[in-house]
Protein backbone atom coordinates (compact mmCIF):
# COMPACT_ATOMS: atom_id res chain seq x y z
CA UNK A 1 0.00 0.00 0.00
CA UNK A 2 1.37 3.42 1.06
CA UNK A 3 -0.02 6.70 -0.18
CA UNK A 4 1.85 9.42 -1.99
CA UNK A 5 0.75 12.97 -2.65
CA UNK A 6 2.17 16.11 -4.19
CA UNK A 7 1.04 19.57 -5.15
CA UNK A 8 2.78 22.17 -7.27
CA UNK A 9 1.29 25.64 -7.42
CA UNK A 10 1.18 27.52 -10.69
CA UNK A 11 -0.67 30.44 -9.14
CA UNK A 12 1.01 32.32 -6.30
CA UNK A 13 -2.37 33.17 -4.80
CA UNK A 14 -2.66 29.68 -3.34
CA UNK A 15 0.76 29.86 -1.66
CA UNK A 16 -0.60 30.48 1.84
CA UNK A 17 -2.95 27.52 1.66
CA UNK A 18 -0.32 25.03 0.44
CA UNK A 19 0.03 23.46 3.89
CA UNK A 20 -3.68 23.02 4.48
CA UNK A 21 -4.24 21.58 0.98
CA UNK A 22 -1.44 19.04 1.51
CA UNK A 23 -2.53 18.26 5.03
CA UNK A 24 -6.00 17.11 3.87
CA UNK A 25 -4.38 15.01 1.15
CA UNK A 26 -2.17 13.26 3.70
CA UNK A 27 -5.00 12.69 6.17
CA UNK A 28 -7.10 11.13 3.42
CA UNK A 29 -4.24 8.85 2.39
CA UNK A 30 -4.03 7.61 5.97
CA UNK A 31 -6.21 4.77 4.69
CA UNK A 32 -3.30 3.57 2.54
CA UNK A 33 -0.61 4.15 5.15
CA UNK A 34 -1.41 4.38 8.86
CA UNK A 35 2.10 3.67 10.20
CA UNK A 36 3.96 6.91 9.59
CA UNK A 37 3.77 10.08 7.54
CA UNK A 38 6.05 12.80 6.29
CA UNK A 39 6.20 15.73 3.97
CA UNK A 40 8.68 18.01 2.23
CA UNK A 41 7.66 21.58 1.74
CA UNK A 42 9.45 24.01 -0.56
CA UNK A 43 9.53 27.60 0.52
CA UNK A 44 11.14 30.75 -0.86
CA UNK A 45 14.82 30.11 -1.48
CA UNK A 46 17.25 31.38 1.15
CA UNK A 47 19.82 33.72 -0.38
CA UNK A 48 22.88 33.06 1.73
CA UNK A 49 22.07 30.42 4.27
CA UNK A 50 21.27 26.73 4.13
CA UNK A 51 18.41 25.07 5.98
CA UNK A 52 18.94 21.73 7.68
CA UNK A 53 15.89 19.72 8.74
CA UNK A 54 16.91 17.72 11.78
CA UNK A 55 14.96 15.24 13.85
CA UNK A 56 16.36 15.56 17.38
CA UNK A 57 14.73 12.30 18.46
CA UNK A 58 14.56 12.13 22.27
CA UNK A 59 16.92 15.05 22.88
CA UNK A 60 15.78 18.08 24.77
CA UNK A 61 15.65 21.11 22.44
CA UNK A 62 17.53 23.36 24.91
CA UNK A 63 20.36 20.81 25.21
CA UNK A 64 20.56 20.49 21.46
CA UNK A 65 20.65 24.29 21.09
CA UNK A 66 23.46 24.58 23.61
CA UNK A 67 25.49 21.87 21.95
CA UNK A 68 24.99 23.29 18.45
CA UNK A 69 26.06 26.76 19.61
CA UNK A 70 29.40 25.34 20.66
CA UNK A 71 30.13 24.37 17.06
CA UNK A 72 28.44 26.83 14.76
CA UNK A 73 26.49 30.04 14.50
CA UNK A 74 22.94 29.11 13.61
CA UNK A 75 19.32 30.12 13.92
CA UNK A 76 17.10 27.33 15.21
CA UNK A 77 13.38 26.89 14.84
CA UNK A 78 11.75 24.10 16.79
CA UNK A 79 8.74 22.23 15.42
CA UNK A 80 7.81 19.28 17.64
CA UNK A 81 10.82 16.92 17.62
CA UNK A 82 12.18 18.50 14.44
CA UNK A 83 14.40 21.55 14.18
CA UNK A 84 15.00 23.74 11.16
CA UNK A 85 18.54 24.96 11.50
CA UNK A 86 19.65 27.91 9.39
CA UNK A 87 23.32 28.56 8.92
CA UNK A 88 25.74 29.84 6.32
CA UNK A 89 27.75 26.65 6.72
CA UNK A 90 27.86 24.65 3.49
CA UNK A 91 26.46 21.08 3.43
CA UNK A 92 29.82 19.32 3.33
CA UNK A 93 31.08 21.03 6.50
CA UNK A 94 27.71 20.81 8.26
CA UNK A 95 27.28 17.12 7.49
CA UNK A 96 30.75 16.46 8.88
CA UNK A 97 29.89 18.24 12.14
CA UNK A 98 26.64 16.33 12.51
CA UNK A 99 28.41 13.06 11.85
CA UNK A 100 31.16 13.75 14.35
CA UNK A 101 29.26 15.39 17.22
CA UNK A 102 25.58 14.62 16.76
CA UNK A 103 25.22 10.87 16.31
CA UNK A 104 22.03 11.07 18.40
CA UNK A 105 20.08 13.21 15.90
CA UNK A 106 18.97 12.45 12.32
CA UNK A 107 19.37 14.80 9.41
CA UNK A 108 16.21 14.38 7.34
CA UNK A 109 16.95 16.90 4.61
CA UNK A 110 18.80 20.04 3.64
CA UNK A 111 18.93 22.74 1.02
CA UNK A 112 18.05 26.37 0.44
CA UNK A 113 14.30 25.96 0.17
CA UNK A 114 13.30 22.46 1.35
CA UNK A 115 12.03 21.60 4.83
CA UNK A 116 11.27 17.96 5.65
CA UNK A 117 9.24 16.61 8.56
CA UNK A 118 8.45 12.96 9.17
CA UNK A 119 7.41 10.83 12.07
CA UNK A 120 5.77 7.55 13.03
CA UNK A 121 2.09 7.57 13.91
CA UNK A 122 -1.23 8.08 12.20
CA UNK A 123 -0.94 10.68 9.41
CA UNK A 124 -3.70 12.84 10.94
CA UNK A 125 -1.66 13.01 14.18
CA UNK A 126 1.61 13.65 12.36
CA UNK A 127 0.27 16.62 10.36
CA UNK A 128 -1.24 18.05 13.54
CA UNK A 129 2.01 17.64 15.42
CA UNK A 130 3.99 19.54 12.81
CA UNK A 131 1.20 22.11 12.25
CA UNK A 132 1.30 21.48 8.51
CA UNK A 133 -1.88 23.55 8.03
CA UNK A 134 0.07 26.72 8.82
CA UNK A 135 2.72 26.19 6.18
CA UNK A 136 3.00 28.20 2.99
CA UNK A 137 5.23 27.53 0.02
CA UNK A 138 5.46 26.85 -3.69
CA UNK A 139 5.17 23.06 -3.80
CA UNK A 140 5.17 20.08 -1.51
CA UNK A 141 5.17 16.30 -1.53
CA UNK A 142 4.13 13.84 1.12
CA UNK A 143 3.83 10.19 2.04
CA UNK A 144 1.78 7.92 4.27
CA UNK A 145 3.43 4.60 5.00
CA UNK A 146 2.22 1.06 5.45
CA UNK A 147 5.48 -0.59 6.46
CA UNK A 148 6.46 -3.69 4.51
CA UNK A 149 10.18 -3.86 3.77
CA UNK A 150 11.48 -2.55 7.10
CA UNK A 151 10.44 -1.49 10.60
CA UNK A 152 8.18 1.42 11.57
CA UNK A 153 10.75 4.06 12.51
CA UNK A 154 11.45 7.69 11.67
CA UNK A 155 14.39 6.48 9.57
CA UNK A 156 12.03 4.25 7.65
CA UNK A 157 9.57 7.09 6.99
CA UNK A 158 9.46 9.11 3.81
CA UNK A 159 10.36 11.55 2.24
CA UNK A 160 14.00 10.62 1.81
CA UNK A 161 16.50 13.34 1.08
CA UNK A 162 18.37 12.63 -2.14
CA UNK A 163 20.64 15.67 -1.99
CA UNK A 164 20.47 19.42 -1.71
CA UNK A 165 16.83 20.50 -2.04
CA UNK A 166 15.91 17.07 -3.36
CA UNK A 167 13.76 14.32 -1.95
CA UNK A 168 11.86 11.20 -2.86
CA UNK A 169 8.62 9.49 -1.86
CA UNK A 170 7.78 6.00 -3.02
CA UNK A 171 4.73 3.78 -3.22
CA UNK A 172 5.73 0.20 -3.86
CA UNK A 173 8.58 -2.12 -3.05
CA UNK A 174 11.96 -2.83 -4.58
CA UNK A 175 13.28 -6.36 -4.84
CA UNK A 176 16.93 -5.70 -5.70
CA UNK A 177 17.61 -3.16 -2.97
CA UNK A 178 20.14 -5.27 -1.06
CA UNK A 179 22.33 -5.76 -4.11
CA UNK A 180 22.03 -2.16 -5.13
CA UNK A 181 22.82 -0.98 -1.59
CA UNK A 182 26.06 -2.98 -1.64
CA UNK A 183 27.04 -1.45 -4.98
CA UNK A 184 26.21 2.09 -3.86
CA UNK A 185 28.12 1.64 -0.58
CA UNK A 186 31.20 0.92 -2.68
CA UNK A 187 30.62 4.27 -4.40
CA UNK A 188 30.62 5.93 -0.98
CA UNK A 189 26.88 6.39 -0.47
CA UNK A 190 25.78 6.19 3.18
CA UNK A 191 22.65 4.41 4.39
CA UNK A 192 20.96 4.77 7.78
CA UNK A 193 18.24 2.12 7.51
CA UNK A 194 17.36 -1.21 5.90
CA UNK A 195 14.65 0.50 3.91
CA UNK A 196 14.29 -0.11 0.17
CA UNK A 197 13.28 3.47 -0.64
CA UNK A 198 16.42 4.79 1.00
CA UNK A 199 18.33 2.75 -1.60
CA UNK A 200 16.31 4.34 -4.41
CA UNK A 201 17.04 7.74 -2.86
CA UNK A 202 20.74 6.88 -2.63
CA UNK A 203 20.70 5.70 -6.23
CA UNK A 204 19.11 8.93 -7.42
CA UNK A 205 21.43 11.19 -5.42
CA UNK A 206 24.49 9.22 -6.56
CA UNK A 207 23.48 9.59 -10.22
CA UNK A 208 22.72 13.28 -9.75
CA UNK A 209 26.09 13.88 -8.15
CA UNK A 210 27.61 12.19 -11.20
CA UNK A 211 26.22 15.10 -13.18
CA UNK A 212 23.26 13.29 -14.63
CA UNK A 213 20.07 15.33 -14.71
CA UNK A 214 16.89 14.27 -12.93
CA UNK A 215 15.08 13.12 -16.07
CA UNK A 216 18.02 10.94 -17.17
CA UNK A 217 18.36 9.56 -13.65
CA UNK A 218 14.71 8.58 -13.48
CA UNK A 219 14.90 7.00 -16.94
CA UNK A 220 17.93 4.97 -15.83
CA UNK A 221 16.09 3.78 -12.74
CA UNK A 222 13.67 1.92 -15.06
CA UNK A 223 16.47 -0.51 -15.87
CA UNK A 224 18.39 -0.47 -12.57
CA UNK A 225 15.57 -0.66 -10.03
CA UNK A 226 13.66 -3.93 -9.96
CA UNK A 227 10.26 -3.83 -8.31
CA UNK A 228 7.02 -1.96 -8.20
CA UNK A 229 7.01 1.75 -7.77
CA UNK A 230 5.43 5.10 -8.28
CA UNK A 231 8.00 7.76 -7.40
CA UNK A 232 7.58 11.46 -6.80
CA UNK A 233 10.86 13.34 -6.65
CA UNK A 234 10.84 16.89 -5.35
CA UNK A 235 13.36 19.49 -6.45
CA UNK A 236 13.81 23.19 -5.74
CA UNK A 237 11.75 24.09 -8.79
CA UNK A 238 9.03 21.45 -8.88
CA UNK A 239 8.49 17.73 -8.94
CA UNK A 240 8.69 14.73 -11.24
CA UNK A 241 6.68 11.52 -11.35
CA UNK A 242 7.63 8.06 -12.59
CA UNK A 243 5.78 4.73 -12.56
CA UNK A 244 7.47 1.43 -13.31
CA UNK A 245 6.52 -0.26 -16.56
CA UNK A 246 4.15 -2.79 -15.03
CA UNK A 247 2.32 0.08 -13.30
CA UNK A 248 0.59 -1.84 -10.52
CA UNK A 249 1.03 1.05 -8.12
CA UNK A 250 -1.59 3.70 -8.71
CA UNK A 251 -1.27 7.41 -9.39
CA UNK A 252 -3.64 10.03 -10.64
CA UNK A 253 -2.83 13.58 -11.66
CA UNK A 254 -5.17 16.58 -11.63
CA UNK A 255 -4.09 19.72 -13.41
CA UNK A 256 -5.79 23.12 -13.47
CA UNK A 257 -4.55 26.60 -14.40
CA UNK A 258 -3.66 27.09 -10.72
CA UNK A 259 -1.95 23.84 -9.71
CA UNK A 260 -0.84 20.32 -10.54
CA UNK A 261 -1.64 17.69 -7.94
CA UNK A 262 -0.81 14.02 -7.75
CA UNK A 263 -2.06 11.34 -5.40
CA UNK A 264 -2.34 7.57 -5.17
CA UNK A 265 -6.11 7.89 -5.30
CA UNK A 266 -8.45 10.61 -6.52
CA UNK A 267 -10.21 10.84 -3.16
CA UNK A 268 -7.09 12.50 -1.71
CA UNK A 269 -7.62 15.39 -4.12
CA UNK A 270 -11.40 15.71 -3.87
CA UNK A 271 -11.08 18.80 -1.63
CA UNK A 272 -8.79 20.76 -3.97
CA UNK A 273 -10.28 23.92 -5.49
CA UNK A 274 -12.00 23.40 -8.86
CA UNK A 275 -10.78 19.80 -9.00
CA UNK A 276 -13.95 18.61 -10.71
CA UNK A 277 -13.07 20.80 -13.67
CA UNK A 278 -9.40 19.77 -13.66
CA UNK A 279 -7.72 17.75 -16.38
CA UNK A 280 -7.48 14.38 -14.68
CA UNK A 281 -5.31 11.60 -16.02
CA UNK A 282 -3.23 8.64 -15.00
CA UNK A 283 0.52 8.93 -15.65
CA UNK A 284 1.59 6.34 -18.21
CA UNK A 285 3.99 3.60 -17.19
CA UNK A 286 7.68 4.22 -17.78
CA UNK A 287 7.19 7.88 -18.69
CA UNK A 288 8.81 10.69 -16.69
CA UNK A 289 6.43 13.58 -16.04
CA UNK A 290 7.77 16.77 -14.55
CA UNK A 291 6.55 20.20 -13.58
CA UNK A 292 8.62 23.25 -12.86
CA UNK A 293 11.91 21.47 -13.54
Amino acid at each position, binding site marked *: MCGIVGIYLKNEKLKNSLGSLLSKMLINMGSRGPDSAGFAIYKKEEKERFKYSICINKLNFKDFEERINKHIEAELKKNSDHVILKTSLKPEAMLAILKKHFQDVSLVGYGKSIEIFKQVGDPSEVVKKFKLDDYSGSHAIGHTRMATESAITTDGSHPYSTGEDECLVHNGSLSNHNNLRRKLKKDGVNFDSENDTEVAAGYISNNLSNKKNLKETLKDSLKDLDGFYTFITGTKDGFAVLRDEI*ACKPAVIAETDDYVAIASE*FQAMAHLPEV*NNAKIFEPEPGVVYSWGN
Partner: protein
Amino acid sequence: MELDLKKLELRNVNDKLQNLDRKTNERDFTIINPEGNHAICAGLDKEMNVTIKGHVGYYCAGMNKKATITIEGNVGTGVAENMMSGKVHVKGNASQSAGATAHGGLLIIDGDASSRCGISMKGADIIVKGSVGHMSGFMSQSGNLVVCGDAGEALGDSLYETNIYIKGNVKSLGADCVEKKMDKKHINKLRKFLKNAEIKNHKAESFKRYGSARKLYNFKIDNNY
Protein backbone atom coordinates in the same frame (compact mmCIF):
# COMPACT_ATOMS: atom_id res chain seq x y z
CA MET B 1 -34.12 10.81 -5.83
CA GLU B 2 -30.93 12.66 -5.04
CA LEU B 3 -28.40 11.07 -2.71
CA ASP B 4 -25.67 13.38 -1.41
CA LEU B 5 -22.52 11.58 -0.33
CA LYS B 6 -21.43 14.65 1.61
CA LYS B 7 -24.40 14.18 3.89
CA LEU B 8 -25.01 10.43 3.75
CA GLU B 9 -22.71 7.56 4.62
CA LEU B 10 -21.56 5.60 1.58
CA ARG B 11 -22.60 2.38 3.30
CA ASN B 12 -26.15 3.68 3.74
CA VAL B 13 -26.38 4.80 0.13
CA ASN B 14 -25.21 1.42 -1.17
CA ASP B 15 -27.49 -0.33 1.29
CA LYS B 16 -30.48 1.65 0.05
CA LEU B 17 -29.73 0.83 -3.60
CA GLN B 18 -29.05 -2.82 -2.86
CA ASN B 19 -32.33 -3.20 -0.99
CA LEU B 20 -34.83 -1.16 -2.96
CA ASP B 21 -38.12 -0.50 -1.25
CA ARG B 22 -40.59 -2.55 -3.29
CA LYS B 23 -43.52 -0.49 -2.11
CA THR B 24 -42.37 2.54 -4.10
CA ASN B 25 -41.69 2.88 -7.80
CA GLU B 26 -38.58 4.95 -7.23
CA ARG B 27 -36.07 3.60 -9.76
CA ASP B 28 -34.11 6.71 -10.74
CA PHE B 29 -31.32 7.93 -8.50
CA THR B 30 -28.66 10.61 -8.71
CA ILE B 31 -25.60 10.48 -6.49
CA ILE B 32 -23.87 13.80 -5.92
CA ASN B 33 -20.50 14.60 -4.32
CA PRO B 34 -18.96 11.15 -4.83
CA GLU B 35 -15.51 12.66 -4.06
CA GLY B 36 -13.55 9.66 -5.23
CA ASN B 37 -15.13 7.22 -2.79
CA HIS B 38 -14.59 3.51 -3.41
CA ALA B 39 -17.19 0.86 -4.23
CA ILE B 40 -20.03 3.27 -5.00
CA CYS B 41 -23.00 1.30 -6.40
CA ALA B 42 -21.29 -2.04 -5.83
CA GLY B 43 -23.56 -5.07 -5.79
CA LEU B 44 -26.75 -3.59 -7.27
CA ASP B 45 -29.04 -6.35 -8.54
CA LYS B 46 -32.31 -4.73 -9.59
CA GLU B 47 -33.34 -2.72 -12.63
CA MET B 48 -32.76 0.94 -11.89
CA ASN B 49 -30.97 4.00 -13.25
CA VAL B 50 -28.23 5.61 -11.22
CA THR B 51 -26.31 8.68 -12.33
CA ILE B 52 -23.18 9.59 -10.40
CA LYS B 53 -22.18 13.21 -10.80
CA GLY B 54 -18.43 13.43 -10.36
CA HIS B 55 -15.28 11.33 -10.08
CA VAL B 56 -15.33 8.02 -8.25
CA GLY B 57 -12.73 5.68 -6.73
CA TYR B 58 -12.16 1.95 -7.01
CA TYR B 59 -14.62 -0.83 -7.92
CA CYS B 60 -17.50 1.47 -8.85
CA ALA B 61 -20.53 -0.56 -10.03
CA GLY B 62 -18.71 -3.78 -9.15
CA MET B 63 -20.74 -7.01 -9.50
CA ASN B 64 -23.51 -5.05 -11.21
CA LYS B 65 -26.60 -6.99 -12.22
CA LYS B 66 -29.46 -5.43 -14.21
CA ALA B 67 -28.83 -1.82 -13.13
CA THR B 68 -27.88 1.01 -15.50
CA ILE B 69 -25.19 3.15 -13.95
CA THR B 70 -23.76 6.30 -15.52
CA ILE B 71 -20.70 8.00 -14.13
CA GLU B 72 -20.29 11.62 -15.14
CA GLY B 73 -16.60 11.74 -14.36
CA ASN B 74 -13.53 9.52 -14.14
CA VAL B 75 -13.41 6.14 -12.46
CA GLY B 76 -10.65 4.42 -10.48
CA THR B 77 -9.41 0.84 -10.64
CA GLY B 78 -11.84 -1.97 -11.49
CA VAL B 79 -14.99 -0.20 -12.66
CA ALA B 80 -17.79 -2.76 -13.27
CA GLU B 81 -15.50 -5.58 -12.14
CA ASN B 82 -17.31 -8.88 -12.21
CA MET B 83 -20.42 -7.31 -13.76
CA MET B 84 -23.09 -9.92 -14.52
CA SER B 85 -25.54 -7.87 -16.59
CA GLY B 86 -26.87 -4.33 -16.99
CA LYS B 87 -25.00 -1.32 -18.30
CA VAL B 88 -22.24 0.88 -16.95
CA HIS B 89 -21.37 4.06 -18.82
CA VAL B 90 -18.27 6.07 -17.86
CA LYS B 91 -18.23 9.53 -19.36
CA GLY B 92 -14.62 10.26 -18.42
CA ASN B 93 -11.45 8.13 -18.27
CA ALA B 94 -11.07 4.81 -16.50
CA SER B 95 -8.13 3.57 -14.47
CA GLN B 96 -6.73 0.06 -14.71
CA SER B 97 -8.62 -3.25 -14.83
CA ALA B 98 -11.89 -1.79 -16.14
CA GLY B 99 -14.47 -4.54 -16.51
CA ALA B 100 -12.17 -7.14 -14.94
CA THR B 101 -13.68 -10.66 -14.89
CA ALA B 102 -17.06 -9.28 -16.07
CA HIS B 103 -19.43 -12.08 -17.06
CA GLY B 104 -22.04 -10.05 -18.92
CA GLY B 105 -23.56 -6.63 -19.48
CA LEU B 106 -22.20 -3.64 -21.34
CA LEU B 107 -19.42 -1.30 -20.21
CA ILE B 108 -18.92 1.89 -22.23
CA ILE B 109 -15.99 4.19 -21.55
CA ASP B 110 -16.08 7.51 -23.38
CA GLY B 111 -12.47 8.41 -22.59
CA ASP B 112 -9.37 6.24 -22.26
CA ALA B 113 -8.96 3.14 -20.13
CA SER B 114 -5.51 2.43 -18.71
CA SER B 115 -3.75 -0.91 -18.33
CA ARG B 116 -5.41 -4.34 -18.10
CA CYS B 117 -8.79 -3.24 -19.46
CA GLY B 118 -11.03 -6.32 -19.70
CA ILE B 119 -8.57 -8.55 -17.86
CA SER B 120 -10.00 -12.06 -17.53
CA MET B 121 -13.40 -11.00 -18.82
CA LYS B 122 -15.87 -13.81 -19.14
CA GLY B 123 -18.59 -12.63 -21.48
CA ALA B 124 -19.17 -8.90 -21.08
CA ASP B 125 -18.99 -6.36 -23.89
CA ILE B 126 -16.59 -3.49 -23.32
CA ILE B 127 -16.48 -0.49 -25.63
CA VAL B 128 -13.75 2.11 -25.15
CA LYS B 129 -14.07 5.24 -27.26
CA GLY B 130 -10.49 6.30 -26.49
CA SER B 131 -7.40 4.10 -26.09
CA VAL B 132 -6.48 1.26 -23.75
CA GLY B 133 -3.20 0.65 -21.87
CA HIS B 134 -0.90 -2.35 -21.71
CA MET B 135 -1.99 -5.95 -21.09
CA SER B 136 -5.59 -5.23 -22.08
CA GLY B 137 -7.71 -8.33 -22.54
CA PHE B 138 -5.17 -10.38 -20.56
CA MET B 139 -6.41 -13.99 -20.20
CA SER B 140 -9.89 -12.93 -21.21
CA GLN B 141 -12.20 -15.82 -21.86
CA SER B 142 -15.25 -14.65 -23.74
CA GLY B 143 -17.10 -11.49 -24.74
CA ASN B 144 -16.04 -8.54 -26.85
CA LEU B 145 -13.56 -5.72 -26.33
CA VAL B 146 -13.95 -2.83 -28.78
CA VAL B 147 -11.41 0.01 -28.79
CA CYS B 148 -11.82 3.04 -31.05
CA GLY B 149 -8.33 4.37 -30.25
CA ASP B 150 -5.01 2.58 -29.79
CA ALA B 151 -3.95 -0.37 -27.65
CA GLY B 152 -0.81 -0.56 -25.51
CA GLU B 153 1.76 -3.35 -25.22
CA ALA B 154 0.89 -7.06 -25.02
CA LEU B 155 -2.72 -6.81 -26.16
CA GLY B 156 -4.70 -9.98 -25.51
CA ASP B 157 -1.88 -11.86 -23.82
CA SER B 158 -2.80 -15.51 -23.16
CA LEU B 159 -6.36 -14.90 -24.23
CA TYR B 160 -9.01 -17.55 -24.72
CA GLU B 161 -12.10 -16.79 -26.80
CA THR B 162 -12.69 -13.05 -26.46
CA ASN B 163 -13.01 -11.06 -29.68
CA ILE B 164 -10.95 -7.90 -29.67
CA TYR B 165 -11.64 -5.12 -32.18
CA ILE B 166 -9.16 -2.24 -32.42
CA LYS B 167 -9.47 0.77 -34.69
CA GLY B 168 -6.07 2.40 -34.07
CA ASN B 169 -2.55 1.10 -33.60
CA VAL B 170 -1.59 -1.84 -31.45
CA LYS B 171 1.79 -1.38 -29.79
CA SER B 172 2.37 -5.11 -29.55
CA LEU B 173 0.41 -8.35 -29.31
CA GLY B 174 0.71 -10.59 -26.27
CA ALA B 175 1.49 -14.31 -26.33
CA ASP B 176 -0.94 -16.31 -28.46
CA CYS B 177 -2.86 -13.24 -29.66
CA VAL B 178 -3.08 -12.87 -33.44
CA GLU B 179 -4.84 -10.67 -35.94
CA LYS B 180 -7.79 -12.45 -37.49
CA LYS B 181 -9.89 -11.96 -40.57
CA MET B 182 -12.80 -9.54 -40.32
CA ASP B 183 -15.56 -11.33 -42.18
CA LYS B 184 -19.12 -10.18 -42.73
CA LYS B 185 -20.37 -11.84 -39.57
CA HIS B 186 -17.90 -9.88 -37.47
CA ILE B 187 -18.55 -6.60 -39.26
CA ASN B 188 -22.27 -6.97 -38.60
CA LYS B 189 -21.67 -7.82 -34.96
CA LEU B 190 -19.35 -4.86 -34.49
CA ARG B 191 -21.81 -2.57 -36.24
CA LYS B 192 -24.38 -3.47 -33.61
CA PHE B 193 -21.96 -2.70 -30.79
CA LEU B 194 -21.11 0.67 -32.28
CA LYS B 195 -24.76 1.48 -32.73
CA ASN B 196 -25.54 0.48 -29.15
CA ALA B 197 -22.83 2.78 -27.90
CA GLU B 198 -24.04 5.55 -30.22
CA ILE B 199 -20.70 5.68 -31.99
CA LYS B 200 -21.23 7.23 -35.40
CA ASN B 201 -17.78 8.44 -36.41
CA HIS B 202 -16.17 4.99 -36.74
CA LYS B 203 -17.07 2.48 -39.42
CA ALA B 204 -17.07 -1.20 -38.46
CA GLU B 205 -15.03 -2.00 -41.59
CA SER B 206 -12.14 0.15 -40.39
CA PHE B 207 -11.47 -2.01 -37.28
CA LYS B 208 -9.06 -4.93 -37.06
CA ARG B 209 -10.00 -8.09 -35.24
CA TYR B 210 -7.72 -9.96 -32.84
CA GLY B 211 -8.21 -13.29 -31.19
CA SER B 212 -6.52 -16.35 -29.82
CA ALA B 213 -4.21 -18.51 -31.96
CA ARG B 214 -5.38 -21.30 -29.61
CA LYS B 215 -1.87 -22.67 -29.24
CA LEU B 216 -1.50 -21.95 -25.55
CA TYR B 217 -4.62 -23.39 -24.02
CA ASN B 218 -5.45 -26.29 -26.31
CA PHE B 219 -4.15 -29.62 -25.26
CA LYS B 220 -2.75 -31.28 -28.35
CA ILE B 221 -3.54 -34.95 -28.42
CA ASP B 222 -0.59 -35.66 -30.69
CA ASN B 223 1.94 -34.10 -28.35
CA ASN B 224 4.41 -36.84 -27.54
CA TYR B 225 6.53 -36.43 -24.48
